[in-house]
């Protein structure tokens, strides 16, 4: 799902400036008045805004009910569902997992993606082969990969085989069945799936860097590592901020991997807001509580986007 947002954040962070800069002079334009655009934007506007805002409003209403989704007269309970959420240890566990998940996946993806991009800008052999290998996970559905990941990290899976092959057999254990290692495995799978996006964005950002600056730095005696940390890294900061925002939203949206690989378990160790809301709303049919959790998730996503969006615009 997140693949679609790869570039989103970049554009969002730029949008306020761009919009402000363009909208103002356009209004005062001389010359022929422009044709009315309203009929052109209305189909998309009604479809998206009508649909989604209706859904959000409806969720907000349901969140004040004690309802199983089918009973004809649900009971109004005010904000009781929200109070229930704040007293639910599983809710706080999902928040904790989301934060850890964001910090780890973002850091690791940034590091690997950045290094890959730098290496592939360095005249290595067969660059396209490496590019393809890193990028293939992005186009594969998490649902398609879930069975093999369950197998790889199972007690007699390939990961344990590799560990014993390289003499670390003592570390071998059922990775997904143990609370302490299930979350790291979920994060590793996510990193495997999304580093391609990080890489491709950094790769594109690096092509934009002025070659002369790099050349000048080299003539001044800077080595590869210095060029990378002092010149390349600051120059791709916009991409890094965008990727941070992408990761926040991605962490809040996480559903496919934990649901398919561990079902949120063992003992809620890999429960995320997405899997939690699904479990509450659909199999457990506590629709009112699920809706309250959905509204909380919505608030968190918007807050995350705004926080990073504003940071991006202020600095740029």
């Amino acid at each position, binding site marked *: 799902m997140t*693949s679609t947002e790869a570039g989103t954040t970049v554009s969002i962070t730029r949008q306020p400036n761009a919009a402000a800069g363009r909208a103002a002079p356009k209004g005062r334009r001389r010359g022929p008045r422009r044709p009315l655009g309203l009929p052109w934007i209305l189909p998309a506007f009604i479809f998206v805004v009508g649909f989604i805002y209706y859904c959000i409003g409806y969720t907000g209403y349901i969140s004040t009910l004690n309802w199983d989704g089918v009973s004809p007269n649900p009971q109004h309970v005010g904000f009781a569902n929200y109070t229930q959420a704040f007293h639910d240890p599983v809710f706080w566990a999902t928040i904790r997992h989301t934060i850890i998940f964001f910090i780890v996946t973002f850091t690791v993806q940034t590091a690997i993606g950045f290094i890959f991009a730098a290496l592939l800008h360095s005249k290595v052999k067969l660059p396209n082969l490496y590019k393809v290998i890193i990028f293939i*996970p992005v186009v594969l559905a998490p649902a398609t990969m879930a069975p093999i990941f369950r197998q790889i990290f199972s007690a007699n899976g390939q990961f344990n085989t590799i560990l014993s092959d390289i003499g670390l057999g003592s570390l071998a254990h059922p990775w997904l069945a143990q609370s302490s290692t299930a979350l790291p495995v979920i994060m590793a799978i996510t990193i495997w799936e999304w580093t391609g996006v990080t890489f491709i964005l950094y790769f594109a950002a690096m092509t934009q860097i002025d070659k002369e600056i790099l050349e000048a730095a080299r003539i001044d005696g800077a080595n590869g590592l210095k060029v990378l940390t002092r010149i390349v890294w600051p120059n791709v900061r916009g991409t890094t901020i965008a990727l941070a925002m992408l990761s926040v939203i991605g962490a809040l949206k996480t559903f496919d991997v934990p649901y398919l690989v561990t079902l949120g378990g063992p003992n809620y160790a890999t429960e995320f807001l997405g899997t939690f809301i699904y479990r509450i709303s659909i199999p457990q049919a506590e629709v009112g509580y699920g809706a309250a959790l959905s509204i909380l998730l919505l608030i968190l996503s918007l807050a995350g986007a705004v926080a990073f969006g504003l940071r991006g615009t202020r600095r740029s």
Partner: protein
Amino acid sequence: MFETRRLSSKIILQVILTIMVLPFLFPLIAMVQESLSGQGWGNYKAVWATGVVPQFFRNSAIIALGVIIIVYCLTMLAAFGFSKLHVRWKEIFFWMMLAALTLPEVVLLTPLFSIAIHLGLFNTYFSVILPLAALQIPFAVLLTRNFMNSIPDELFDAARVDGANAAVIFRRIILPLTRPIAAAIIILTLIAAWNDYLLPLVFLQTPSTQTITLLPSFFVSEFSDDQTKVVASAVITAIPEIIAYLCLQRLFERGLTAGALK
């Protein structure tokens, strides 16, 4: 980025790169290996013999195509209006749409469920196509508007002086000039629709409508304890995606970087 004049440093870079890429390759190799263990190609034969695989593909293709058509048409119209035409309170409309961008689809489950039941759309393609399209359009409009802003207004004004109305300009000037961004949007929408799991999981209940992302779960119940066949079915669903990517590599990568590059 790294200077590689000496042969030794060239080799070191190549080795580092190769070691770093191995973990990315490993699950793919493990997947193929696993799908061939036990009965070897027999796993693939057993999966194919169930006869449902083409059906799942067809469903995914119909859904992806439906989403692409809706997203493409509505996005092009709206982006043209936002970028080149006169709209009052333009930015308010725009930001109301953009707010939907961060929306996790799980938030929509309950209301969508009740809409689908009321309109009789449950277990139909529409129950997945409509929400997917609604979730894709805001981002597509954002990208396309940015792209159209770079088309000079003078071109547009000149056409108007020559007597062309907005519809003609849209067809003759805007559509041909926006082909690159349209391609990017189609690819992005394709990946999102093809790989979506949650909406089909909730709304599509029978194999006659289910998509390929539900194929592994279908085979888990079909071949209860035979993991190798489940993995074989996953390989079958992965192959077309990999082929599509390899054939359209530039488009895929450009699609994903579209927002990052001005």
